[in-house]
């Protein structure tokens, strides 16, 4: 992989945001709304629960982490969709740019955009609702990394899906996190799910992250096993998504889909 083509992909996204600052709006608005909404819900729950439980870290912390994961995924897919919307594939892939350099550029873009969202969420959650996000220390960073890898994997998978099925399929991409969230056990322990749902959850790294976070908040010992399982699943799914993207790209080159993507709208 060469650095300059990767820098080119990142620079393009920077230019897009500089040229149209309204692109920053969804990066901060939805996360801010989520934090404010859930912040007040947790405040209300704290007031009616009789002081037995603090919902701020469990619910608001979970919202923050799940939003982070979702933003990472959307950061990758939105950067990819910019090329779909501007019919730029022919220009991109008739250049020396490789698929891995392109994906690396999308991932770096996503790291930057989702970090902006994370900072906004942290400021609101800490400032207004007194969430002590970093009180869990290093395990939190490790769990964040798992969510980060899963978000990237999901973004790459979603982008491959759009490449394979055509621009109209972007509407399948946006609901992906919502579809997965019941299985990811973001707000409740895994054991409350029916048996068949638990099987799906075991394939999802966020399920291990949120189980682990709840264990930590409950004062149980560091859940190293959950972190290990979550990390292994995330690495595996990241590699799988990259492999899937590569296969879809190769097929698009074989069938002419890649060339047609620029020449016409693929329904």
């Amino acid at each position, binding site marked *: 992989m*060469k650095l*300059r*083509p990767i*820098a*080119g*992909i990142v*620079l*393009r996204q920077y*230019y*897009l945001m500089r*040229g*149209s600052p309204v692109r920053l709006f969804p990066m901060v608005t939805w996360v801010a709304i989520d934090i404010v909404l859930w912040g007040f819900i947790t405040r209300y729950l704290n007031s009616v629960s009789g002081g037995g439980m603090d919902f701020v870290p469990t619910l608001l912390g979970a919202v923050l982490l799940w939003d982070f994961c979702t933003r990472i995924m959307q950061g990758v897919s939105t950067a990819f969709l910019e090329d779909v919307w*501007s*019919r*730029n*594939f*022919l*220009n*991109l*892939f*008739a*250049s*020396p*740019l*490789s698929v891995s350099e392109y994906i690396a550029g999308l991932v770096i873009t996503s790291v930057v955009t989702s970090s902006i969202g994370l900072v906004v969420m942290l400021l609101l959650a800490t400032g207004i609702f007194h969430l002590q996000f970093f009180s869990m220390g290093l395990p939190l960073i490790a769990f964040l990394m798992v969510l980060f890898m899963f978000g990237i994997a999901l973004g790459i998978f979603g982008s491959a899906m759009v490449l394979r099925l055509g621009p109209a399929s972007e509407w399948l991409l946006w609901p992906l996190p919502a579809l997965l969230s019941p299985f990811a056990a973001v707000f409740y322990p895994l054991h409350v799910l029916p048996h068949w749902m638990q099987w799906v959850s075991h394939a999802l790294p966020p399920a291990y992250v949120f189980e682990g976070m709840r264990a930590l908040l409950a004062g149980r010992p560091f859940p190293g096993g959950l972190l290990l399982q979550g990390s292994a699943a995330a690495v595996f799914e990241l590699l799988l998504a990259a492999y899937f993207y590569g296969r879809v790209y*190769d097929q698009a*080159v*074989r*069938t*002419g889909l*890649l*060339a047609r993507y*620029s*020449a016409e709208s693929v329904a």
Partner: protein
Amino acid sequence: MPSVTYNGSDRPALRATRLSKAYGELTAVDDVSFTVKRGEIVGLLGPNGAGKTTTINMVLGVLAASTGGVEIDGIDISKQRARALARANFAAVYAALPGNLTVIENLRFFGLLYGIDSLRHRVEEMLQEFDLVHLRHTKCGLLSSGEQTRSALAKALLNKPQLLLLDEPTASLDPSAAQLIRAKIKTQATRDRCGILWTSHNMTEVESVCDRVLFLSRGKVLLEGNPRTLPQEHGSATLEDLFIRVAREPLAAAAEVHP
């Protein structure tokens, strides 16, 4: 096909060897071989659906050939894609530069993709060369057809390509703008020894610009030669007459040419 050994500057800018592309039963390009020498402008002609764009897409590596191979400046694109494509570039009416970036942003962006050294200096050169200085901060989507073509050509020449592919570069341009663009491209071929593969439906343009033409019909090369002498050699008054004859009766024309 006899094998030819090239070295140094004799190496062709492009060598396509027995290229074919089939989609199921349909053969879009059928056993096409040709070369484009350095400094040569080759016209790729043919009616709609003849296989011109399919051929160009295979040369650019965005479409895999069913059989056959492509070498750019002696480098096999299937084996060293990035190295080969770093020596080529293209402009096509259906692949406009992203309209939501300004001219200078597009040139910097593509300059990085092509790994160009001294990018800032090269971008300024291209802005000057294609009279885009005053439009540097204008979004490409807001440019006129002529300005968009000039921007696309500036991008296509950023990396000083040894091979330039131009798919109908003057389509939608007024005669004056088209003449200026043709002059710039001809300069590129002679001054920088760049091999150019040019598709166009404007036969007057082809006659004035191209050193050699290939007539493609139903995926096959039917005729090849000098655009100024080819019509007479095949009993047509003009290149346009020959084009129409080949387009309407490709098999008969083929039999006449290769009895």
